[in-house]
């Protein structure tokens, strides 16, 4: 008669399997990427939000000042980047939880859900602002919209630079979702 040994069906302790080691590495990388994304989106929001250029001459009828809230799209850009930055700061707690408990699955799904929603918001803000920045640089002769960058040079440079941090944040969010999915799929 065969006797089942005491360890025949048992598992080795979880902390020593290679699976949880890789998951822990993935979670640490997730935490680091979140920190970088916080800096990128915060930089974009501040760079766009502090635009204020006044040309040194004026007449009675024409404006010679450009700020970000002259364009509703740029206001949406600043708001979107601020919301995403705040979300990232709050999600650092969940990320630290995943470092400690690398086998958590339900919270990783929640994190993927929230990350996808924030990716959509960030992409919307960055892309809408990019369309307006392109118009500001090139104008459009078919609809008689003139480019403003020849006059407001520093304003244009600021708004173009603010887009870079936001698009970097989009790339980082895609990587974050990919990392969470990889950690979820290892079994």
């Amino acid at each position: 008669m065969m006797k089942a040994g005491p360890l025949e069906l048992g598992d080795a302790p979880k902390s020593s399997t290679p699976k949880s080691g890789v998951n822990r590495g993935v979670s640490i990388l997730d935490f680091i990427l979140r920190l970088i994304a916080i800096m990128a989106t915060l930089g974009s929001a501040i760079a766009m939000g502090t635009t204020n250029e006044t040309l040194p001459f004026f007449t009675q009828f024409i404006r010679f000042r450009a700020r970000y809230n002259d364009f509703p799209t740029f206001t949406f850009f600043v708001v979107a980047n601020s919301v995403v930055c705040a979300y990232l700061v709050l999600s650092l707690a969940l990320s630290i939880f995943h470092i400690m408990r690398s086998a958590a699955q339900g919270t990783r799904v929640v994190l993927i859900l929230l990350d996808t929603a924030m990716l959509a918001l960030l992409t919307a803000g960055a892309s809408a602002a990019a369309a307006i920045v392109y118009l500001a640089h090139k104008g459009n002769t078919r609809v008689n919209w003139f480019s403003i960058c020849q006059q407001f040079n520093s304003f244009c440079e600021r708004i173009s630079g603010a887009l870079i941090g936001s698009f970097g944040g989009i790339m980082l969010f895609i990587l974050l979702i990919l990392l969470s999915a990889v950690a979820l799929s290892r079994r």
Partner: protein
Amino acid sequence: MEATKSSNETTIHIPESKSARSKAAAAPPPPPSGGWKRGVAIFDFILRLCGITAALAATTTMGTTDQTLPFFTQFFQFQASYDDLPAFSFFVVGNAIASGYLILSLPFSIVGIVRPHAVGVRLLLLILDTVMVALTMASAAAAAAIVYLAHNGNSNTNWVAICQQFNDFCQRVSGAVVASFIAAVIFMFLVVFSAVALRN
């Protein structure tokens, strides 16, 4: 099989069942039922079909815009078409890529239905769906920014609203942007469903 006869009863030992039992006990436990995963995969497939409809509708509605006003002068154009604005060209290209991707991903989704425990297919679909969320949302938002300008103009930069003249063009373009936002939301749901189906 040995049988021992005592006074009134017969005991039959069947050693094969014991070895079969221990063999089954030594084999890995059967995977948990894949019933709910199959349901999620079927819902995923149906959502992909809806997404194809939305993305194709957005592409064709924007791509077939062409309005010519019935009067003209020597100096001004009175024609509006989607390729007058680069954001709208990007919109058409982005939504065409999204609908092409959705059509190509249908076989992978069927594989996910047939084999509920396939991990590689779901992971691949999740990653590509995430990229498509970004692409669709980008094209929809860029076109939405231009549509907002076309409706309201901008007094600070002397950009005139063109919708008062090109009414039909503006309506078609606004409808296409709405369809594209619906496709982006569908992509977001697809990502979440793939994540839910990935867990044990």
